């Protein structure tokens, strides 16, 4: 959808046009949900983050820079809410450290990863094992195809920092995925 069109929809939505809300939601929720799922492991947390992102949409429309693509603004909202959530969950983690230590591993894998074959599960697992900061860069680079410069703008951090997170992340993945047994590698090369 065109930027201008999206912006008009947002304005209408903010003024109370329910139809505009539905159009906007339908056009965005898959992308938002998938991005959030890559970045946030727990199901309930994803739900909270999603809700926050959309609530931000109608409260912070004033910050929308019409010169930039709509998608970019949307992903900015996603990133900020995910980061906010991480700060919160870190605090929670300190308190419930022990409890979570038990349930932690289990939550990494949910239905869709369970359905994947061994190799894909391993890539998935490796990405999830990256640090949050590395993971964010990897997802926006490879899932959304942003340039490293764009990621720097989105995250509001220097380009050098993005580069080092990117390389460290890639290094870690290379180590894990590169260690796959030979027959599995062939399977990956098939497609």
């Amino acid at each position, binding site marked *: 959808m065109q930027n201008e069109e999206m912006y008009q929809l947002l304005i209408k939505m903010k003024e*109370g046009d*329910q139809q505009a809300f539905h159009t906007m939601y339908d056009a965005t*929720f898959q992308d938002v949900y*998938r991005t959030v799922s890559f970045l946030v492991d727990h199901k309930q947390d994803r739900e909270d983050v999603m809700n926050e992102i959309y609530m931000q949409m109608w409260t912070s429309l004033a910050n929308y820079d019409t010169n930039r693509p709509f998608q970019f603004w949307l992903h900015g909202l996603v990133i900020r809410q995910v980061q906010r959530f991480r700060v919160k969950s870190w605090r929670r983690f300190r308190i419930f450290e022990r409890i979570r230590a038990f349930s932690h591993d289990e939550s990494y894998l949910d239905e869709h990863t369970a359905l*994947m074959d061994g190799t*894909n599960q391993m890539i998935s697992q490796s*990405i999830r094992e990256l640090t949050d900061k590395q993971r964010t860069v990897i997802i926006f680079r490879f*899932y959304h195809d942003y340039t490293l410069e764009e990621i720097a703008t989105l995250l509001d951090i220097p380009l050098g920092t993005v580069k080092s997170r990117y390389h460290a992340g890639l290094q870690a993945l290379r180590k894990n995925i590169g260690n796959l047994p030979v027959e599995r590698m062939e399977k990956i*090369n098939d497609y």
Partner: protein
Amino acid sequence: MTIERKIREHLHEEAQTMECPPAISKRIEQSYSHYLQRKRSEITMKKRLIGGLVAAAILIPTAAFASPVVIDMLTRAPITSEQVKLDEAGKATLEKLYRAIPETKSFEIIEASYLGDPNDSTKKVQLSIVLQEKGGTGKKITLHTNGITDEIQDLTQENWEPKEKALITLSDQEIKGKVDQLIDKLYGNIKDYEVAMEQMDNPNQKTFILNYTKKGSEGFEGGGYQVFVQGNSISLSPVAPEPNTGVEGYFSLNGKPDYTADSFLNDEKLFALLKMSPKELKEELAKGKTVVEIAASKNISKQQVIDVIARTQAEGQLQDGKNKVTISDELLKQMMKEIEPKVVHVIEHKTETEWK
């Protein structure tokens, strides 16, 4: 295959398997409807605020708003504190006040006046009393009462907090608590109301507006109280229930609904005169016509339209809280004449142009 490509393909493939659970969509939809509900009541409050300021400007001489013409036609006659105590409305007002805030019994009446109809001395529109604490602390209370029904239309409580810790410096919760208490003492039943507190865009002085509305009703549908907190004072006035008729935003400006003329055009008698529903009128205005043009197409003269709206407005200005004040026909006609220029301006306005 490079590792980069591998990751990219894997991510896209994995994404395909991720479906957003319906529960999430449901929840977001709910959040949106909550947002809408809040927003709708804000609009009503803003509209109400405009109306409230107009009423304040007309009937409350102490208000710091530009004095409109209407007030000049009513005369304000000073009276002594003895006269207040002998007057029926005065007695009733003081009793209410003493019951609500017993410490005011020791206050002295430093000023009192009647706002009346110069053509008819029995028509007393409004009684105003200012009381002050004896001694140096400066606690002060100003009351405006409907001269006929005894209802307190407006109360301003000043300097109740020590100067070094003025009301406005307290936390939102504390301010709200003080206002709650004041309403409860004066009018009771605070539990039936819910409050929305909002800081106003006032660059010169921090000002809060608190809108108390009946629980479960939208905006001021069921009546309520509107309160301003500024400096070291609380200014409180009851709001009459608002009939839920008419439409919002008859005109538009910069692509947004413009509520400026709503209080003039949401007039049952006007709809009857034009034989149109509010919705139809709004649709016609949206085409860029003026109210005068719409009336003309129905063989209704401009003067007829003016008379209908001006009468409603004049009568509205004499109305407070829940009751109406009656004045002589002669004075009403005068008031209508004074309001006429404003009415003409509204009915000659076209949508998407600036208001003068």
